[in-house]
């Protein structure tokens, strides 16, 4: 009886003391927040950090949307997701004055107006943290010079030697880019042309892969010349490790790229501390450690895989995901051009 009372008092004291030190609740992907960084931040700001890790966009959405974003202070999410959060008012505008380290970022990241997913009505909602582009991987034995256009995937010279990825959204974006359009917002009037373009792609590829290891196996077995690298650098590394003499290229139309950013939840209890966290995470020390430890590109240094002049299309919500998906299923099933008329 007595013991439980003491325990209760102790628990209460702990709870009180825990509240005395400010607690920052962080929602992030594995590899984005290392324990020693957390310890350093806690020391610098005399705060406590609670990190929750998620493995998919779906889980991330569940966590941030529960309680209207009141369960967390900061969240790491890609541009598509951030855009969706802004739509649902789950994140709040940032005070850039509190984020001096933004000034150290590369020009393409420094100006949020360049990245459509993270600003709205003149206000900035997220700060870029890390990114990866989906370039083209080519067989250096078959390509005398690196492919410079995305249209090479449609080149009959490589018929049956191209590997594309089985994803409706990306493939529509790619087809649109190949047609000289913008990837994420295909107007209805342009859609039939994009579909025909995708049928043409289907007729030119060996197949559409899903898993990274599947792409490696296919590349080896079928003397593939060109591969759309949905898994980016990771996939490039895997192919090289499989003994393939491959190169990596960013086409002149630009490459689709995902960009993960830090944003502050709408219901954050510690907005000031959350700004401090974001500023800390984009500091030179942490950014370079992220690249060193995870092999992920940071926002301060130019990537080894792409030039600063390369066009990168940060992923954005597309005009109609469901429609793209339905059309893609038919295209993949082998419906002929006349069946879409």
């Amino acid at each position, binding site marked *: 009886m007595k013991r439980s009372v003491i325990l209760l008092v102790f628990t209460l004291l702990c709870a009180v003391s825990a509240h005395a030190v400010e607690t920052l609740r962080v929602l992030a992907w594995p590899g984005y927040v290392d324990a020693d960084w957390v310890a350093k931040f806690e020391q610098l700001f005399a705060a406590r950090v609670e990190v929750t890790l998620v493995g998919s966009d779906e889980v991330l959405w569940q966590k941030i949307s529960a309680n209207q974003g009141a369960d967390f202070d900061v969240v790491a999410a890609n541009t598509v997701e951030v855009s969706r959060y802004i739509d649902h008012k789950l994140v709040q505008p940032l005070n850039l004055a509190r984020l001096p380290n933004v000034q150290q970022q590369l020009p393409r990241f420094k100006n949020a107006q360049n990245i459509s997913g993270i600003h709205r009505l003149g206000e900035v909602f997220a700060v870029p943290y890390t990114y990866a582009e989906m370039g083209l991987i080519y067989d250096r034995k078959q390509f005398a010079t690196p492919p410079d256009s995305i249209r090479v995937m449609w080149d009959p010279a490589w018929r049956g030697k191209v590997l594309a990825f089985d994803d409706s959204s990306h493939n529509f974006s790619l087809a649109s880019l190949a047609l000289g359009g913008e990837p994420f917002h295909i107007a209805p009037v342009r859609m039939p042309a994009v579909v025909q373009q995708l049928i043409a792609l289907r007729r030119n*590829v060996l197949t559409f892969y899903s898993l990274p290891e599947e792409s490696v196996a296919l590349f080896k077995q079928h003397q593939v010349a060109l591969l759309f690298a949905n898994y980016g650098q990771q996939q490039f590394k895997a192919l090289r490790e499989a003994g393939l003499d491959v190169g990596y290229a960013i086409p002149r139309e630009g490459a689709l790229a995902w960009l993960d950013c830090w944003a502050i939840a709408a219901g954050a209890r510690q907005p000031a501390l959350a700004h401090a966290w974001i500023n800390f995470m984009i500091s030179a020390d942490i950014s370079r450690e992220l690249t060193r430890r995870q092999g992920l590109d940071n926002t301060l240094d130019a990537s080894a895989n792409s030039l600063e002049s390369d066009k990168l299309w940060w992923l954005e919500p597309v005009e109609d995901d469901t429609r793209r998906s339905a059309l893609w299923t038919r295209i993949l099933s082998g419906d002929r051009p006349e069946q879409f008329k």
Partner: protein
Amino acid sequence: MMRFGIAAKLALLLLGFGFLSMGLVGTVAYTNSRTTVLESAQRELLTATQVLGRQFQTNMEIVSSDALMLSRLPSAPRVAQARLTQDHSADEAALVAAFEALMVVRPAYFQVRLISAAQHGLELVRVDRDGANLITVAAADMQEKSHNAYVFNTLALGAGQVYLSDISLNHEQGAHDGLDKPTLRVATPVTAADGSVLALVVINLDLNGLFERLKADLPNAYQVYLSNHWGDYLIHPNPAEAFGFDAGRRIFIQDAFKPVADLIKGTGGSAVTSVPPITQRSPGLVAAFVRLPYGAQRDEQRFVVLGLSQPMAQVVKQIEHLGWRTLQVMLAGGVGALLLAVLLARLVTQPLKRMTEAMQGFAEDQTVSLLNDNRQDEIGVLAASLNAMQNTLVSNLQELNASRDAIEQLAQHDPLTGLPNRALFQDRLVQAMTQAERDHGALALMFVDLDGFKPVNDLYGHQVGDELLNVVAQRLQDCVRRMDTVGRIGGDEFVVLLPLVSSVNDAVVVAEKICQSLHEAVNIEGHHVMISASVGVALYPDHAHDMKTLIHFADTAMYLAKKAGGSQMKVAVVANPDRAV
């Protein structure tokens, strides 16, 4: 109590030992048998898995030969070429009829198609299963399939070769029954006379349907697992676990069943394992897996892993049965041990019990009961020792009793004459007086004093005097009845007690008889000795009621007789004995 104690302790000890050894043997036997049962369950399961695997491979061979048979139909190459040349409807109809006939007898076929090698893999003839119907798909709905692995891989084969696709969910739109179902495509090229590949025949096999049928021969509790060469589940008792990769989720068989990792790596052909129960929802199970080479021979990398599991509960039931049997045997053994222990304890304690009884009897009344000392063991030695002890004790006791009797004799009798001494005589006098008082009877007390004894002593010496006293003692005893007592209370002073007299006359008769008897001469060592005696008589209750007064009166009467010249008797005279006190 002690007897029981030793027997009980001994029995307990023996019993404890018996149970301990039985428990040990039982536990070892149970543990070993448990392992054996588990191993045999796993072996059985492995055999079943291997049989299932062979059945699966046999079925693959059947599907392959079906595909080959269709590809060799003369109408097949004609349809493939006809598009480019002339009318082909008759050949097409023949193919459709063949496809349908086959699908009627092969319920696990979702779809049978002829696909062109040209025209981006356009389907030329296609029959789909749709519930109970077979649908011949119209030309307008045909699709291009060249970008599918089963097409481009089969087109790379030569005549008579068969391609088995990876197993996947069929998301090809318009596939009717097969849509989104686990499907295995078996395909073979259709070649022209010159050997060039014109088309391919593809059979879509309903994987779940096939295993449903194969599983029908197995016990109900058996569950089937199937994975591809990466370990992704294709069949799992929980359908949600299968084809995780199709939804971007990898669920690997080797994560749930560690030994399967060797099969995936290609370092093993089969594996057995048991998964302990984790929660109530996932009770433990025993499982066996085999690695089945899959597809064309040129592609040795491809295989599937097939597994069967059995709930641990079933195996446990066998083990429990075994445990119960072991327990029964142990219980029977325990009863045996109990009987044996009691018997042994009795065997050991029985002689001890007899010895104790003998010793108790001996202690109570010194009856010697000789123990059986024929035994050659420690008990025999103990019995012999006890016998010896009993004998020693008895002889010692006899000696002791003799000495005690002698001492008693010495204490109460005159050592010279053997007559009662003063103490014994007084004792008898008291008894006699008590008796007389109770019986209202009378008794007589006489004091007998020898006249002229001193001169005899002086004249002939003490030896003669002593001899004389012996003669006197003898003569006095001759003068009285057996019930009467003669005692010697001093040098030449004797006393006589007549415990039962009817009157003073009885006493006077005896007294005179004594005087007469003692007046006769005695011959001792050649000496002719003449003596006489003075006798004083007093009677109870005539003269006194108490001993002291009675003695006083007898003594006084004796003195009067001596004074009157001796050799005579005097009876005490007293008017009123009460006054005399």
